[in-house]
């Protein structure tokens, strides 16, 4: 048992930041600005010249990811050999005392993200070449995809909150373009808009949080914020709760936490490689990343420590509720989507439990196995031309590479020893139990139970997915084939990583990852496991094994899918899950349609009939008066202007009469003559 005595981070003393003995990373860190810039520049290149290249722009996209992967891994290795912290910034504006900057930060946290985005991105971009072959907008797809990765790197490399917002929203736009890639179908467009708007709602929180922090300490730099926290800045303490809460609301949008989770399953409308990258390395990780970046704000007892309770509850709700929905999905991508939500819930729970390392470690391992699972699912969809598991079955015979890799991914996700998910999930369980011992109290204890139950659910729905897809009889049409090598090689690569990534942090044996992501400007005091907690590891493993066992019992064999599904049709619960707890319905019918419909129409009506009514009424009144006063004298003028003219009704009519007879010259001349006088006056008096 490792109830760590680790204090909740209070480093007031000056020397704290030097205690880490971080290096500045030398040239490698100085040039790291290339990591976000190369994809963004190549994105433009793909747009403008992509179509003329032999591979239609794919080669540029692939090169950008290869570059990021190589650079990211190089940094990763350098950081593992000795922590790096480097920040570079250029000023882009100065307003009063406020400075706006672009820059790049190279430290343990961002390096881990560069490496993950690069490596997973490389696998997905390679795969996408095969998957998107023959697509009507092949080049444009890779342009948006490169923008997507580039935007994520802008976000990750941000040394200040404003640049974070920029990357944050660019990720949102890129996701909009990708989800709606097949925009001929309005259903896809609706999904794209839903993703964008849901995120935009959460961004209200992010922007307000950034404003609160920036105005309070007079700087947007993370390093200044962290310093203010280390120095127990009294101004920041006052607003810490609201700032922390608002930033978390922002994080809830991108990381799809309940109740902002609704956009993510719909985002499956995009091509499968998009889902893969979005769920593994980019976009959904942004929220967890932000919580990691701002970790001391939540962890320090003087600051937003109360928000942590909210974070852990939201995370637990997300991990449990969405995991259940995954059980009733027929669309294989939706199963994985709800699974992602559930896993993001784990990461959020970890952050809420004060476990910086555990949250990021799960982000790290999840990136590999979830990226893999989506690509494997895409390979299946590519073969059977359907997303529905009721059209699949028995595919393990036709697609052995896909089957084996999918199986490894599923086991890793379910948390089976010794694959990656086992280690990261165990790390989270351990951290929650530490939190329960260190002040988290009852909430943390309940969350621990929920998290173990979540492990059961995860294994259960993945077992279901594996059996329905790969076992039994094939129910689809035609003869499915294994995908080409350009698609299976990335699967194999990611499967290998899913198997071994967990070894980066094995409590008591090798805890490299803890040190790697701990290379920050100030020490990250958090709950992390120092040795394997056999009780918790055993509980987690047992829950997963039980899930697989029951899943096997229910869905193994050649049962008809429908019958298999019926065994799970528990009254009340099933319709509740199928309608996704009616949350989507409430948002669409209750909020969106009401705003777009009655409210917007009422505003427009009031504009036409109330405000303009007054204006037109004044006009009509003036016209009426004019009629009385001038009677039949100026019939024509009144006729023309009766509808709206105010005091100058007759005059305006006269003018119009001239213009329509083409005598603009007269007026222009008059104007000209008048202003000539100005010039002459100027000349005389000069």
């Amino acid at each position, binding site marked *: 048992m490792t109830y760590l005595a680790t204090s909740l981070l209070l480093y007031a003393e000056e020397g704290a930041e030097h205690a880490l003995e971080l290096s500045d990373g030398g040239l490698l860190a100085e040039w790291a600005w290339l990591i976000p810039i190369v994809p963004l520049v190549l994105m433009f290149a793909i747009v403008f010249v992509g179509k003329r290249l032999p591979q239609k722009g794919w080669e540029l996209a692939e090169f950008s990811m290869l570059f990021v992967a190589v650079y990211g891994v190089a940094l990763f290795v350098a950081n593992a050999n000795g922590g790096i912290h480097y920040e570079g910034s250029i*000023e882009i*504006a100065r*307003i*009063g005392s406020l400075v706006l900057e672009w820059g790049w930060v190279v430290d343990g946290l961002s390096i881990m993200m560069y490496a993950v985005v690069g490596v997973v991105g490389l696998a997905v971009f390679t795969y996408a070449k095969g998957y998107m072959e023959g697509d009507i907008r092949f080049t444009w797809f890779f342009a948006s995809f490169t923008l997507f990765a580039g935007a994520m790197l802008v976000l990750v490399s941000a040394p200040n909150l*404003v640049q974070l917002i*920029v990357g944050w*929203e*660019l990720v949102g*736009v890129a996701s909009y373009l990708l989800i*709606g890639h097949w*925009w*001929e*179908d309005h259903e896809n*467009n*609706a999904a794209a*808009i839903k993703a*964008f*708007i849901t995120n*935009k709602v959460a961004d*209200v929180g992010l*922007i*307000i949080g950034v*404003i609160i922090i*920036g105005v309070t300490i007079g700087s947007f730099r993370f390093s200044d914020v962290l310093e203010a926290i280390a120095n127990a800045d009294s101004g920041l303490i006052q607003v810490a709760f609201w700032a922390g809460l608002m930033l978390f609301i922002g994080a809830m949008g991108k990381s799809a936490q309940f109740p902002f989770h609704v956009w993510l399953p719909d985002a499956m409308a995009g091509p499968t490689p998009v889902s893969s990258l979005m769920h593994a390395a980019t976009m959904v990780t942004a929220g967890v990343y932000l919580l990691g970046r701002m970790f001391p704000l939540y962890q320090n007892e003087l600051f937003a420590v109360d928000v942590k309770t909210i974070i852990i509850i939201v995370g637990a709700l997300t991990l449990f509720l969405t995991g259940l929905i995954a059980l009733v999905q027929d669309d294989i991508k939706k199963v994985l989507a709800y699974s992602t939500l559930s896993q993001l819930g784990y990461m959020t729970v970890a952050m809420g439990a004060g476990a910086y390392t555990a949250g990021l470690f799960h982000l790290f391992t999840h990136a590999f196995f979830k990226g893999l699972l989506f690509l494997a699912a895409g390979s299946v969809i590519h073969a059977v031309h359907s997303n529905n598991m009721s059209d699949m079955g028995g595919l393990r015979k036709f697609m052995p590479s896909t089957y084996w890799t999918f199986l490894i991914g599923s086991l890793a996700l379910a948390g089976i020893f010794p694959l990656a998910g086992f280690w990261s999930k165990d790390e989270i369980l351990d951290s929650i139990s530490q939190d329960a011992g260190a002040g988290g109290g009852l909430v943390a204890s309940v969350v621990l139970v929920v998290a173990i139950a979540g492990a059961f659910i995860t294994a259960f729905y993945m077992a279901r997915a594996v059996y329905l897809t790969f076992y039994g009889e094939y129910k689809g049409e035609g003869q499915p084939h294994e995908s080409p090598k350009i698609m299976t090689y990335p699967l194999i690569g990611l499967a290998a990583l899913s198997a071994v990534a967990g070894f980066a942090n094995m409590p008591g044996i090798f805890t490299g990852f803890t040190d790697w992501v701990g290379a920050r400007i100030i020490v990250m005091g958090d709950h992390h496991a120092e040795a394997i907690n056999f009780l918790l590891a055993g509980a987690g493993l047992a829950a997963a094994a039980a899930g697989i066992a029951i899943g096997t019992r229910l869905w193994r064999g050649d049962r008809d899918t429908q019958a298999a599904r019926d065994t799970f049709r528990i009254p009340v619960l099933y319709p509740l899950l199928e309608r996704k707890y009616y949350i989507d319905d409430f948002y669409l019918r209750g909020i969106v349609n009401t*705003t*777009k419909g009655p*409210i*917007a129409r009422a*505003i*427009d009506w009031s*504009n*036409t*009939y109330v*405000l*303009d009514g007054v*204006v*037109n009424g004044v*006009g*009509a009144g003036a016209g009426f008066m004019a009629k009385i006063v001038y009677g039949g004298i100026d019939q024509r003028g009144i006729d023309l202007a*009766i*509808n*709206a*003219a105010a*005091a100058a009704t007759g005059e*305006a009519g006269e003018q*119009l009469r001239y*213009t*329509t007879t083409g005598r*603009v*010259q007269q007026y*222009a*001349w008059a*104007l*000209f003559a008048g*202003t000539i006088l*100005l*010039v002459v*006056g*100027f000349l005389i008096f*000069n």
Partner: protein
Amino acid sequence: MDWFESGWGLSLIVFLPLVGAAFVLMLPKAQERVAKWVSLGFVLASFGLSVGVLFAFDFDVTEKFQLGTDLTWIPSIGSRFHIGIDGISLPMLVLSTFITLLAVVYSWNHWPEPHNPKAFLALILVLATGMNGTFVALDLVLFFIFFELVLLPMYFMIGIWGDRTKMRIPGFKREVETRLYASIKFFLFTLFGSVFMLLGFLALYFKSDPHTFDMLLLADMGQMGVFTGTFGAWVFAAIFLGFAVKVPMWPLHTWLPDAHTAAPTVGSVLLAAILLKLGTYGIIRISLPILPEQAQVWAPWIAILAVIAIIYGSLACLAQTDLKRLIAFSSVGHMGFVMLGISTLTDIGINAAIIGMVAHGVITGLLFFVAGSMSHRYHTREMSRLGGNMKLMPVMGGILAFTAMASLGLPGLAGFWGEFMALLGSFSPLDGLSLGVFRSAMVIGAIGTVLTAGYLLWMLQKVNLGEPSEEWSGQEFHDADGFELAAWVPLVIAILAIGVFPKIIFGATDGAVVHLVKTAFGG
């Protein structure tokens, strides 16, 4: 270059277009080609000189009025030909000459009915003089003349080249042509505000001692507390009314959707890009420095009206079916952010307002360009009939999508800074202003950005995406032509450049704004 810096440079920027208008009018009507080249030459010269101003301007002292002159003009009333620019007016002046140039380029082969390029170009040129003049004038009479000068050309532009479809006005029996209703409404509405503004100017003149119309002298007096109390309140209200109509602020905005919708493309562009800015510019240039005490009294009310405009404008957009009318209503919301920034009376907020003005100029200008070209091709602006535009005209659709993204305030593009910093300013307004009002305004304004994203994305969905409707099948559509691209690409580049490197604007405005806030409000 003494002549350039002693007032001739600015004077030429202002009056060259007017001389051009004279030349154009003297040409025979049939000589369309010559008229175009003459107009282009003059607006190009005006733009070129304003670029010259950028080089001559001393960016180390942006709070100083530079390159101007101060000459006796109408001695009997003490009105002087006083012109000059500082960091606040510089971006506006360059924006004005830039957009005018693009408007002429675009017009090259896009003539709304009833054609007549000669008259149309002459009006653009006269308009340019009015707009440029407003941004350099430092004397209230001079300012007023230029401010009013823009009315007439725009009135004719809408009234003659505008939309001829008949419309029914609620409460009236007879149908009228849209262009007539819109142009008269525009003219009278603005005139109504201007009358009060003129009264306010005269009141300032008679209260000042010695009597003067000079903005700088009046500002000095105002900051010493000459225009305070009830007098100040009435004067502020009168002047504000004039500017508020022009901005336009809710609830004085109803002329705008009609005018924009009815105006020919170039008219909408100039109206949105420059004319609306005259109002906000006037508030920053005249109301704040001359009546600082009153500005602080009114600021919370302005903030409230501004957020009403943001929400109201966005909700109204959601109900629109006409593409141009939607863009027009979006201006109400965007100018709401500008007003919100101004109402904070802080350096951050006013800087936000100025970059917001420039950004709205280039973004909404471009939106109207594209919307105009599209309705020219489809002969309809009804969004329900459009759709699948990306298939029919990919380049135009792409630019529309890009501009819509910029308009919804996407970070990295020009529109973001104005919105974000206006919200930033409202979090900590000038000392003494109600925190409750301004922080609520911040939250509501931030929610407004969601609605903005909503209506723009739905607009894109209706217009750009999906399959083209059967109505258009078999028809040939010409995607953006050379003149259109020549007018649009510079705007696209400007949107990107300001978004990535906002110092382009803040580098000019910051010093001047900080000085303004310090002298007027001590903040």
